[in-house]
């Protein structure tokens, strides 16, 4: 049967068909839908983990215990899991273990454009790279087979255009896999130096065997063409090559690492010009050059952003990437979003805001312009401490979400308390992992399948970490919120303010649209500074409220100084 599946749905389907028993992840675009879809299969023990390191380790444990298991993350999520990844390469597994990583060329929803294929070299692990959803399903099954045969975690490297493309995919049924017997093997699983030295020998021998496998892998495929141009390509780029040069010869690398050197050399000998087409870093290009093969490869300007069919000809002709102007509409907070209330206040207070990863990063854009850093998960706490050490007189407020705090903020808060740091951290607790579309986390008291579970008590947790003050406030009362933040900033203390108001994806209630009296409006534009999607400027600086968009949050009535916008109690 053929069904329409996205790359992420296809990974979930392939894993289910392969008999996966355990799957763990932390949400992150473009990888989130993998676990959301895995959770639809009752045979699989699926979880949102607290962060990627935890997710990796839980899945690894299940694999060591003999069950097929899967870990999924976005590219920067893998950074968090690198510690266990590097050493699990040494220990190996027992049941198959597949590590799915979704890169985000073009940074549609990410803070950098790192290329995960290098982790194959760095971690000494095989990497498979599907070109679309159909291959994603096949490759995940192949990855489990390789994992068990070669006793290694296997990376499945996806990109946004593979994860979020749908195509018709042939599906089949689940094949149950018997758990492998659990063996207490200290020399394999206790990586003290003595044992690890022995395991490193095993790893190098495994890499040699995997290189031999690469030569035989059917997914490293030659498509014979006219023999003039010969493309070496992988992943989504393969599709662009096929569109641009349907008659050319192609070596498609389904196994990105280790390389099939003999097959590559043989292919290069059959064509007049070898052209490498790959997104992001010169991973294939550098390897072919090291093999001594003369290649045409993309200009360095193409290392930035995605490729597309139209770019392939430019690469062949040695041109630079011509940047297309971005005119897309900017994203903004949803109507009624509680984050808007917080940043209207923080902007008014003119404080320096150390931000974090989440919807609230949108507050950095004008006109709100009130968030000043966004680097990685947890910096909403740790940068407050570091900036405080450098700038004693600057008022710094840290901001991060509930899910982000649990992911990476807790250790930073303990560190601040332990090292006698002072400052204010605001946890914007909207009771959901919002940016990725609304996933549960330990503060919501619900699992990935919406089953009730233990609910993390943020107040008690922050107290235990060593915060001097832990306040809980509904910051939709902006006057009270401003007063509280001002007071806490003035104190010589480490303070956490839990600003609790639910995300509009959860709280769908709508209150009456405010009344607008144009006669009272002084056209000052202050209400437009809150960047509400329901408010637009019309002629002469007056405004209009879109009643279909407005949810009646009344923030505009709070900021209007002339009574032109009034709460409508009707």
């Amino acid at each position: 049967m053929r069904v329409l599946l996205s790359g992420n749905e296809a990974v979930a389907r392939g894993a289910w068909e392969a008999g996966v028993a355990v799957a763990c992840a932390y949400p992150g675009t473009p990888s989130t839908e993998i676990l959301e879809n895995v959770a639809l299969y009752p045979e699989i023990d699926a979880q949102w983990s607290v962060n990627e390191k935890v997710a990796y380790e839980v899945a690894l444990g299940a694999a060591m215990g003999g069950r097929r298991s899967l870990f999924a993350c976005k590219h920067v999520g893998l950074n968090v899991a690198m510690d266990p990844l590097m050493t699990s390469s040494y220990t190996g597994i027992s049941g198959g273990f597949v590590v799915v990583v979704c890169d985000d060329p073009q940074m549609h929803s990410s803070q950098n454009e790192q290329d995960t294929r290098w982790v194959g070299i760095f971690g000494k692990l095989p990497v498979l790279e599907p070109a679309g959803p159909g291959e994603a399903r096949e490759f995940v099954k192949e990855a489990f087979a390789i994992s068990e045969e070669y006793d290694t975690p296997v990376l499945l490297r996806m990109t946004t255009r593979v994860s979020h493309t749908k195509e018709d995919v042939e599906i089949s049924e689940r094949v149950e896999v018997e758990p492998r017997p659990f063996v207490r093997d200290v020399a394999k699983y206790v990586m003290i130096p003595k044992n690890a030295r022995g395991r490193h020998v095993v790893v190098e021998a495994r890499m040699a065997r995997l290189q031999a496998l690469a030569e035989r892998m059917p997914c490293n495929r030659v498509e014979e063409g006219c023999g003039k141009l010969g493309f070496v390509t992988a992943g989504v780029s393969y599709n662009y090559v096929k569109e641009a040069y349907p008659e050319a010869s192609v070596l498609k690398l389904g196994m990105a690492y280790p390389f099939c050197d003999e097959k590559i050399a043989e292919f290069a000998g059959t064509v007049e010009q070898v052209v490498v087409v790959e997104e992001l870093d010169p991973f294939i290009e550098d390897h072919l050059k090291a093999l001594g093969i003369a290649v045409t490869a993309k200009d360095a300007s193409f290392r930035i952003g995605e490729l597309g069919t139209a770019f392939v000809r430019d690469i062949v002709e040695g041109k630079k990437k011509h940047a297309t102007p971005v005119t897309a509409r900017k994203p903004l907070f949803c109507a009624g979003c509680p984050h808007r209330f917080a940043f209207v206040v923080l902007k008014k207070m003119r404080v320096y805001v150390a931000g974090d990863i989440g919807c609230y990063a949108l507050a950095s854009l004008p006109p709100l312009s009130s968030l000043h850093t966004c680097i990685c998960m947890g910096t909403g706490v740790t940068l407050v401490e570091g900036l405080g050490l450098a700038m004693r007189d600057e008022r710094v407020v840290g901001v991060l979400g509930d899910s982000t705090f649990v992911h990476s903020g807790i250790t930073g808060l303990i560190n601040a308390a332990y090292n006698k740091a002072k400052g204010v951290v605001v946890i914007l607790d909207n009771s959901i992992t919002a940016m990725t579309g609304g996933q549960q986390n330990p503060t919501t008291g619900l699992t990935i399948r919406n089953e009730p579970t233990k609910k993390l008590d943020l107040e008690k947790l922050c107290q235990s970490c060593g915060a001097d003050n832990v306040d809980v406030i509904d910051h939709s009362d902006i006057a009270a919120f401003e007063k509280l933040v001002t007071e806490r900033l003035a104190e010589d203390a480490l303070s956490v303010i839990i600003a609790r108001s639910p995300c509009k994806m959860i709280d769908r209630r709508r209150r009456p649209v405010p009344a607008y009296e144009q006669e009272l409006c002084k056209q000052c534009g202050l209400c437009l500074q809150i960047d509400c999607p329901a408010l637009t400027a019309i002629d002469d600086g007056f405004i209009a409220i879109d009643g279909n968009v407005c949810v009646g949050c009344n923030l505009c009535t709070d900021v209007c100084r002339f009574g032109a916008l009034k709460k409508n109690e009707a």
Partner: protein
Amino acid sequence: MKRSVCNIVFGGIGGQGILKASEICATAALCEGHHVKKSEVHGMAQRGGSVESHVRFGDAVYSPLVGAGLADFLVCFHKDEHQRLRPFLKPGGTDLTDYLEPAARAITHPRHLNTFLVGALSARLGIGEESWTKAMHAVFDAKILEENLKVFRAGRSVEIQ
């Protein structure tokens, strides 16, 4: 190798149901027996920003994206986005932006815009009515299926002078 692939670009702003519209179209193409690819981006873009979704179907489809100047159809959900999206359209391609006004008159709620525009598009694609009906059943929950079928039929029969 001669390939015939139909290229459609859907675009507008977050929250307008663009991804749902392209889902109906891609599902109908699948029901008709075509090879289909549909591509879009999730995440930050959906917070009220520009959203676009590409659907390609035919005998053999490679790229998930429609290149500039290659779209057979442009289904634009918001007039502010038209200037940005128009370069996708090939010379002689069909621009469904003119359907925004009749759509606004015909529908009772903005959430029906996507279904209406897909209806209008459906009359111009070589996909049978049965496949569209199957796609509508696959994409919509039972409780909102009937109202959407009605809107779809209104869109399918709309005429522009």
